[in-house]
């Protein structure tokens, strides 16, 4: 047996494995790149300041005019409300699960979070439709959409926060306890700051997920064409829904608006991601920088 040259079989295996990985990478990138390429190419035509600052009020579908302002505003408000409710709630649930949860209740919560994780978004929409609108008699509104979106964001946010909190070394908690710091202060001042970058990233993933949700919004938001800044009453616009409606139209002007709105949505999600990374970097444990 020679020590100097790897056996040809091992060499061949290595080459095959490298080629397979390279191929998989290319295959995985094809849809991503082609989506971005197509959306930028087709969306750039209508994507301008006018598009971002005007609504579709009194714009006929065939007109080469109008914009997505009402839809951007609606989506930001709906997602904002959903996130404002979900972030503190899921933080508390995750802290309970990691730091306090023992026995049946914690198991049950974990189980239902897992179940909710796979909940189809249309079901969340139908649930709010039957409970909030048909059951309690409220009208369609941005807030109704927020309720459905928060159901979808909650499990993602809880699960990712939970994982991040579990990653915090028990040695840090013990170091804090050994200084005579009570458990709650240890959680607030040591555990949470250490896990913060990961938590922020998880929350942003959750927000990005619900931002593009169309099905629940379709049922709940009322698809207004004009600007409605009040999410609590009257129909609102929504970006994914705007994309959907415009792309259903056979007129070129409408289809162009749809692409531009899709581009807007992608840009907003990317900006949020960038923002999250910035926070994560800024708050990261200093040695990791």
């Amino acid at each position, binding site marked *: 047996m020679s020590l100097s040259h790897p056996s040809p079989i091992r060499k061949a295996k290595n080459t095959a494995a490298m080629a397979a990985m390279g191929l998989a990478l290319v295959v995985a990138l094809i849809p991503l790149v082609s989506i971005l390429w197509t959306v930028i190419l087709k969306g750039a035509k209508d994507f301008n300041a006018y598009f971002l600052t005007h609504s579709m009020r009194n714009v006929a579908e065939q007109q080469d005019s109008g914009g997505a302002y009402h839809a951007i505003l609606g989506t930001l408000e709906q997602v904002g409300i959903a996130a404002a409710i979900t972030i503190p709630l899921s933080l508390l649930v995750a802290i309970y699960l990691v730091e306090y949860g023992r026995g049946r209740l914690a198991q049950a919560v974990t189980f239902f979070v897992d179940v909710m994780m796979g909940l189809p978004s249309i079901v969340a929409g139908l649930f709010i439709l039957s409970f909030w609108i048909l059951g309690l008699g409220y009208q369609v509104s941005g807030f109704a959409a927020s309720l459905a979106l928060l159901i979808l964001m909650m499990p993602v946010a809880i699960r990712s926060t939970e994982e991040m909190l579990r990653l915090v070394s028990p040695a840090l908690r013990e170091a804090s306890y050994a*200084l*005579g710091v009570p458990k709650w202060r240890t959680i607030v001042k040591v555990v949470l700051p250490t896990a913060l970058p990961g938590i922020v990233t998880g929350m942003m993933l959750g927000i990005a997920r619900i931002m593009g949700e169309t099905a629940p919004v379709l049922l709940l938001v009322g698809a207004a064409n004009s600007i409605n800044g009040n999410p609590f009453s009257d129909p609102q616009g929504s970006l994914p829904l705007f994309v959907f409606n415009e792309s259903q139209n056979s007129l070129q002007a409408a289809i162009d608006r749809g692409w531009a709105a899709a581009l807007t949505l992608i840009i907003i999600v990317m900006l949020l991601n960038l923002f999250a990374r910035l926070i994560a970097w800024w708050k990261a444990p200093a040695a990791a920088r």
Partner: protein
Amino acid sequence: MAKRIDVSGLSAYYGSVRAIEDISLTVEPRTVTAFIGPSGCGKSTVLRTLNRMHEVIPGTRVEGKVMLDDVDLYGAGIDPVAVRRTIGMVFQRPNPFPTMSIYENVAAGLRLNGVRGKSDTDGIVEQSLRGANLWNEVKDRLNKPGMGLSGGQQQRLCIARAIAVSPDVLLMDEPCSALDPISTLAIEDLIAQLKNEYTIVIVTHNMQQAARVSDRTAFFNIEGTGKPGKLIEIDDTPRIFANPSQRATEDYITGRFG
């Protein structure tokens, strides 16, 4: 300041497993007591019962008495959080808080316990870092992250953090086992200084270290896996190493087993 610890009839459990059985020993104020013994003999568990850190792990429990001067630490109405403020601890691996600077790490015990007052904190931080022989190395970079220090410096930072809350007793759980010989020497010198103010209990696997730093040495042993750890004997360190009264102690320190 420094107080006496009196342990009597102490047993500790992890779930239904008894880790240590019927431990009784006394630690005099302003002395260094070393706990030695083979792995798994329960010496760290004994140490962790002394500041009620044992019960931090779910499903654990303690029987018996630990007296700090005339207060039973396991008595009714004793707050474990207050106990840990009085009895500080340094761990095997240096564990500075990764989100905090050197200054903030030392001030952590004060800040996290809600003590305010900037000028006061500055003084305590400097005093503690001097006490831990770290001041000269870090005084120009107090705002740099604690994780940026070397392992030995990090451990001295942890000692500074522990003494910043001015405890009566300092527990050290193998504080040098993750450090190189030079850092170990620095910590041992520090222990010799700290002895003037604190009661110190140190767990160590290094018998030369026990011989070097301690006034008294306790030897723990187990009969076999699954059996609880027991205190074999505790005596003045020179006696334990020169002329132990128990055969098992002699076997252990001469390297015949363990």
